[in-house]
């Protein structure tokens, strides 16, 4: 009896091997590999569904969807894998990349320019901030289905209970003094543990750069000088120091915690407000319905600033069939597919025509603040430099040290030194042609 079972198992395995060989598509079909970074569960499922739709609607191209583990925002593990594959010559055809890493990849020469593929019509319809993010040295190297939004969220009921003014557009955003008052009033409410959740559970990584470099810019500082790419006097100047002092004061005053256990501090009511990227907005809306409100970022004085830039699709130079890869990208960039993903992840649709169709983001939609921020130019791309990996790592390390008690000036100085060292190590990042 036992022996029969074993034989049956062997035969079953043999059958499996043969049938799986038979499933491999017909020979004239183009096989493309696609790497995806892995966002929230809903986002992953929808992206996978999009790839399935593309594979089902035609028989010439088959896209193999490969999801690599990475963290929600930073994608550190994913970036490591991409770097390793780039060296080993193992890059997939279609690569999903986080916007600011594009300049490093393009400089290193492993992304193919998309300009020749993009029709004028398509290009004119793309959200301008996405074009800005995709451009390096005059060419477009990546195109996302959506752009990101960084804003505050609050609950109307709590804000009213605290008796504070509720801004409704970017033009009447809170200024620094008013915002400090709002935090104090919310903190004073009985059923609130702390005023604002800053998502520190994401840890030292891209979130810090994405979310807090706009604060530094709002105070009048920046990460690097846009022309010289140098950080000296910019990231360690008095404005940046003031920004860091304010950020640290949020924790010292108890308005925020350094150690939220997870992503749910706003949903479970511990935090009265949230500072967040668009990717959390859907879940928050589901928790509170119309009580949840998206609020514009604070105007810190020197300028109004918020984050932008998100994951985008690109074609690598290691791809044998760039035309087929573009066919896939073109499909992903149709307004219908853009809306199908942005309805899930609440990111800002990347085409004007899609934006016009969107209930969420259109005029009066509950996510409209995100669009206002992108269109009015207060959203600032992260530093456009091939040295971005060094810039972001220096910044988030310094910030992590500062909020955990390090000396502000010394930490910012150290960050500047690291950025300068990286520029020197790369001969000043000469532009390659």
């Amino acid at each position, binding site marked *: 009896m036992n022996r029969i079972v074993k034989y049956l198992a062997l035969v079953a395995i043999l059958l499996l091997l043969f049938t799986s060989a038979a499933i491999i598509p017909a020979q004239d079909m183009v096989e493309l590999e696609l790497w995806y970074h892995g966002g929230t569960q809903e986002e992953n499922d929808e992206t996978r569904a999009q790839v399935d739709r593309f594979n089902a609607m035609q028989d010439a191209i088959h896209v193999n969807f490969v999801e690599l583990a990475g963290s929600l925002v930073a994608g550190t593990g994913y970036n*490591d894998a991409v770097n*390793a594959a780039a060296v080993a010559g193992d890059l997939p055809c279609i690569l999903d990349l986080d916007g600011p890493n594009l300049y490093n990849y393009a400089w290193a020469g*492993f992304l193919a320019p998309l300009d020749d593929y993009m029709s004028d019509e398509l290009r004119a319809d793309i959200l301008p901030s996405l074009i800005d993010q995709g451009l390096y040295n005059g060419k477009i190297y990546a195109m996302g289905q959506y752009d990101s939004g960084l804003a505050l969220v609050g609950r109307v009921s709590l804000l009213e209970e605290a008796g504070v003014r509720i801004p409704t557009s970017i033009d009447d955003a809170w200024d620094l003094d008013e915002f400090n008052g709002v935090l104090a009033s919310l903190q004073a409410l009985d059923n609130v543990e702390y005023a604002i959740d800053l998502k520190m559970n994401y840890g030292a990584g891209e979130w810090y750069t994405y979310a807090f470099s706009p604060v530094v810019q709002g105070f009048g500082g920046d990460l690097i000088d846009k022309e010289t790419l140098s950080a000296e006097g910019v990231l360690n100047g008095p404005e940046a120091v003031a920004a860091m002092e304010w950020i640290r004061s949020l924790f010292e005053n108890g308005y925020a*915690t350094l*150690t939220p*256990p997870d992503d749910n501090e706003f949903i479970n009511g511990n935090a009265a407000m949230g500072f967040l990227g668009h990717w959390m907005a859907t879940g928050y809306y589901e928790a509170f319905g119309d009580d949840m409100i998206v609020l514009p970022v604070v105007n810190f004085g020197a300028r109004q600033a918020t984050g932008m830039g998100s994951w985008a699709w690109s074609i690598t130079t290691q791809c044998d069939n760039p035309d087929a890869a573009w066919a896939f990208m073109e499909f992903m960039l149709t307004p219908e597919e853009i809306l199908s993903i942005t309805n899930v992840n609440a990111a800002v649709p990347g085409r004007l025509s899609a934006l016009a169709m969107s209930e969420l983001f259109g005029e009066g939609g509950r996510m409209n603040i995100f669009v206002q921020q992108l269109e009015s130019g207060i959203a600032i791309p992260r530093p456009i430099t091939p040295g971005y990996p060094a810039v972001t790592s220096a910044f988030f*390390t310094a910030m992590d040290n500062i909020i*955990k008690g390090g000396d502000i000036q010394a930490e910012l100085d150290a960050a500047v030194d690291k950025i300068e060292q990286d520029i020197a190590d*790369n001969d000043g990042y000469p532009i*390659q042609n």
Partner: protein
Amino acid sequence: MTRSSRFQSHETVYAWLMSAPALIGLFLFVALPLFGGVYWSFTNKRLISPLPTKYIGLQNYQNLLGLQIIRLQPEIDEATGEAQKDLEGRPVYPRTRTIVRGNPVYEGYREWFTTDVLGGRFVVIARDPTFLRSLINTFTFVLVIVPGQGGLALIMALLVNQRLRGRYVFRTIYFSPVVTSMAVLAIVWTFLYNPDQGLINRFLNAITFGRLQPDWLVSADSALLAIIILSAWQAAGFQMVIFLAGLQGIPQALYEAAQIDGGNTWQQFRHVTIPQLRNTTIFVIISTTILAFRLFTQVDVMTKGGPQDSTVTVIYHAVDTGFRQQKIGYGSAVTVLFFVLVVTIALIQRALLKSDVEVD
């Protein structure tokens, strides 16, 4: 040629054949990367860069080890010609950065730390303070974890060696962290270490009435300790099994003889168990030392080397510089230095702890 020598040469061939799979693996995955690392450590090889790789001699090693001490002179008050004092009467010193940046001799140097001793202020500057800090952290980790974890393992082994009901269950429980993924454990322990809501601080709060509430991973003072505790807890089960095997190899007759001589439990432990476990202990010490030097996963998952470099380790620094900052040449130099260091320590340990002594 006699029969026996032909037989011996056959044996040699078989020996090589049998060890071939392991040797090929060692060559491909250990020796070859090592040679590559040594070669790259003399270049500025980058991970992904269009720039050509250049031979730069010992530059990487100089950058790793560059260290200088400068004595700061207080700012002089131009009106009085004396040292400026702040409101509390302490001398005012210039910013270290101004001095380092203003003198070409110090190019590429950064402040590591500042200390007030011998009536003056001294600044230690280094080209890569993070690397030097990583050496200190790694050695601290090894020095604490080898005796700590080894002791814990021995105690656990003694406990589960008792003839108690359910001892197999305890053996399994104590061993289970060893076979669990470190990345998973690190994430779980990050929750446990949460200062406000974590289980550990809730427990400490209950038993000390709120007096003991460490910030664990959030503070530069306690982050390394937190990682040491997790690491010892995770790996002690492995050494426990080795000690357990050692304990069970001790002949029962020795204990019986000790009992006849009137030895109490402590004397039996001190004069029978400990000497009999000598070889086991040596193996545990050497293997724990080598494993401890490789500390990486916990740091990568839990702290990323922070806060303020308090948990950065040599391997973490090698991965961070080589991979994330894309300086393969530099990262290689870190690993080559590290290799030399670990081999030296292993050889010293080997010489100090001769394992061929048998106590019968």
